[in-house]
């Protein structure tokens, strides 16, 4: 069975290594500030003992007052997993850093979120709509979308 990595331990390590990088860490997931996302992700991916080398999926949820981008990482070596989240405020051009540099699999998924949820990914090599056409009005997965 894939073990869920103890979020408390991880949060303590991250707080020591990158002070102020976490917004919240109770529950089953780490909520990382967008500014520290890339550093934290690289740390999770490359640190011996953690080695979260596999990105299961990226998705985003609209909570009206903020958007939450959700990443699930798994280590194929140690068979453990963790959910990392980051939040972005504002409904006009919210954005978070792109993780395409760390995981190639993020490419299409970030484009999908950009297309359907309207969240930009800074540093994405080819950020354009993936399913809908350029010029489509609005982002359908947002809760306030009116067709």
């Amino acid at each position: 069975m894939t073990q869920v990595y103890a979020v408390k331990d991880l949060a303590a390590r991250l707080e020591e290594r990158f002070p102020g990088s976490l917004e919240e860490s109770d529950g089953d997931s780490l909520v990382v500030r967008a500014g520290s996302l890339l550093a934290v992700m690289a740390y999770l991916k490359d640190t011996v003992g953690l080695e979260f080398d596999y990105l299961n999926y990226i998705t985003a949820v609209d909570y009206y007052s903020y958007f939450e981008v959700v990443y699930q990482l798994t280590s194929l070596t140690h068979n453990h997993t963790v959910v990392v989240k980051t939040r972005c405020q504002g409904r006009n051009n919210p954005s978070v850093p792109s993780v395409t540099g760390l995981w190639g699999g993020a490419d299409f998924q970030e484009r999908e979120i950009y297309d359907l949820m309207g969240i930009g990914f800074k540093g994405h090599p080819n950020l354009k709509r993936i399913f809908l056409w350029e010029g489509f009005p609005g982002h359908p997965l947002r809760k306030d979308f009116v067709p």
Partner: protein
Amino acid sequence: MTTTEMMTLKTEPFVLNFGPVHPSTHGVYRMRATLDGEVILDIEPVVGYLHRGIEKLAEERTFSGFIPLTDRLDYISPMSNNLAYCLAVEKLAGIKIPERGEYLRVIMAELQRLANHCVAVGSFLNDCGAYYTPFMYTFREREKIVDLFDMVCGQRLTYNYMRIGGVSQDIPEEFLPALKKLVKQLARFIEEYERLLKQNEILLARTKGVGILSRETAINCGISGPVARASGVAWDLRKADSYSVYDRFQFDIPVGEAGDSYDRYRVRIEEMRQSLRIIEQAMKDVPGGPVRAELPHLIRPPRGEAYGHLEAPKGELGFYIVSDGSIAPYRCHIRPTSLINLSALREMVKGWKVADLIAIFGSIDITMGEVDR
């Protein structure tokens, strides 16, 4: 033309459009391939022709009302889609499934894997140029599996058989004897198919060493399923994150070495044998009792979120569901196996010829219903 003139001649890259309507694209996939003569310099996938907004539709349906829509994702293997969604909701709501229901789920999921791989290897050989003959063989066998599905749920393509808490109905009396017969037939069929193709020179020439996907790229791009295993990633969720009652059965995970198209084909054939092994063990001791947990008509999982995933025939299929305590999901994200498995296609086809592009693309085995959703 003088030799000096010939020396100064330059070739120019040009763009060739494949699809969205093209016999090789398995649906409505489109690629813009940049070619230098016949050599592929780059490809750009263009998707979205089958986008129906299934994730948005989920937000307007009850938890159980969404199950029929999951059939329309990967329509080659709807049983696995049903099951993945139900696993996610059950995880969210903490529902226990009766033993008999679990066994039926495993049997259906493995039959689905066999049916899917029949289509996958058939259409792959089609793409390699063995036009429709191998396809006819595999479809003949798939037909028998579909007949069994028809027997249990009355549908031949969109089964809608799994329910939150179990399966929709018990199997009829004649099911298990028919399954027993089918398992024997399929085992014979795989041997026959292998005899025809394993050492086939054309197949070897078209696929050995072609479209290599390295282990590192496979992991980095989030590739899963037979494609990843062919590249040497021994990762199968049935063992790594065992769900349902898979931990009770003996089976192996076939793994390739080279990561080429041939290995992807071989891994699928080997997986069919393993699926038969699982079905044989499962059908021997299907317990009695109910097939579905007693649940209210409208399921209201508590506030929270859950990610349920399983080893679908094409790879890791998962549903990330957020509940706000109401009768419908607040958000339902589908982890699309087919879309993510396409992430590495660009790396795999660079430098190969146009004809190889078709074969490499065919060896990934995608369904557009799941790519576009």
